[in-house]
């Protein structure tokens, strides 16, 4: 079936969303046009405003429309603890899952030598400057359990170790709670096996 140029264009732009293929984009487009034109208008103006006004927090690099995000501006958080994550969505994940009262630093990616992504691209110059301010006592490295995430964590750990009085820790990786060993992929299992603890 061929649509009018504008409808085709709408379907095409919706396809840029993660997990949305042409079929679901088509359904979304028709839903907006047939049933929710008001919602569509609001979506459009919000989208425009969001991309214009949301930038990066000057301290943690997370997404924020203020120069200092809510977490960094809060006086209730423990400023001696810093958790390093790859993306803003990881900040939310840690906040929801763990009773963590410290600060965050968002890399907005990871080191990837084969893609030409180096330390400055992920803000490690800013992180080093932050460590030198003297408030931080422990840095929790919560990058993803991928080869790139592991390399990034180690790289940062060496930067931390060159500074006295700051501890670097890495979150544990392993078998998902409630999962069955049989179905866990072997790389995960082997990692969990190597990081076993006393019972």
């Amino acid at each position, binding site marked *: 079936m061929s649509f009018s140029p504008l409808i085709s264009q709408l379907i095409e732009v919706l396809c840029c969303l993660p997990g949305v293929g042409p079929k679901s984009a088509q359904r979304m487009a028709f839903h907006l046009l047939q049933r929710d034109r008001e919602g569509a208008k609001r979506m459009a103006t919000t989208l425009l405003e969001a991309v214009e006004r949301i930038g990066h927090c000057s301290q943690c690099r997370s997404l924020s429309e203020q120069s200092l995000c809510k977490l960094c501006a809060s006086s209730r958080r423990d400023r001696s603890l810093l958790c390093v994550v790859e993306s803003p969505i990881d900040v939310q994940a840690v906040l929801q899952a763990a009773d963590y009262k410290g600060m965050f630093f968002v890399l907005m990616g990871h*080191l990837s*030598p*084969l893609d030409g992504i*180096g*330390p400055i691209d992920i803000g490690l110059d800013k992180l080093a400057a932050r460590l030198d301010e003297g408030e931080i006592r422990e840095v929790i490295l919560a990058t993803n359990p991928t080869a790139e995430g592991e390399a990034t964590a180690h790289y940062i750990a060496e930067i931390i170790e060159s500074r006295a009085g700051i501890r670097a820790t890495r979150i544990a990786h392993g078998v998902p709670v409630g999962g069955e060993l049989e179905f866990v992929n072997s790389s995960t299992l082997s990692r969990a096996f190597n990081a076993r603890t006393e019972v």
Partner: protein
Amino acid sequence: MRQSLQASYVLHSRPYRNTSKLLDIFSREQGRRVLVARGARQGNSRLQGQLLPFIPLLLSWQGQGEVQTLTAAETGTLLTPLKGRKVLTAFYLNELLLRLLARDDPHPALYDAYAQTLQRLSGSSDRASDEEAGLRLFECFLLQELGYGLVLDHEVSSGGVLQAQQLYCYQPERGPWVIESKQDCENGLLVHGSTLLALQQGDLYAADAHTEHHNLMLREAKMLIRINLARHLGAKPLQSRELYIQQKQLLKS
């Protein structure tokens, strides 16, 4: 063309379209290839935690043309996961292969050397000198496999055998020249015969760590291989080496 259960490593992967991955693989029998793994980035995909670098895999694919389609993946014998600094070293190996190895050019012996180097890396030794020795031997073998091998079996002015105690001047275009004193080495690199012989015999590992002589050998081997690699790598610097240089500026001394 259909290939089934080919021993392979993923050298690099990048996101492709919405949910797929484009894999640059090194297969033992087929050499470097590009495969598309459809749906590999979907949350429920079994491939998600499987198509990782540095892990021996058995891959099946089919199709024609430049990019073929992955049809199945199994994890081979698993190694202890690489940790910390060793992951960066392993990325360096992959970058070398991506830069120097042409597509569809099989190199089974190089594949085996790569697998063995990774295995040594993930092994128990934490001695930096062992890691370095393993790297040098891999680089040396890589050059040889690509047809740019170092001259390690004779001296080029007389054709005579190399002597461990003798000093040589190594010129990348020619090979080692016998010299009488250090001052005689022009347009070349000063190396001891023992370094050249150790590279030839594939034995750069130290019996006892940190002897003065062994450190000298490692230093010489590093420079020797670096100038030989540089001739084939071109002007673009190796990114994984750049990482180390950039890190120095972030360390506090």
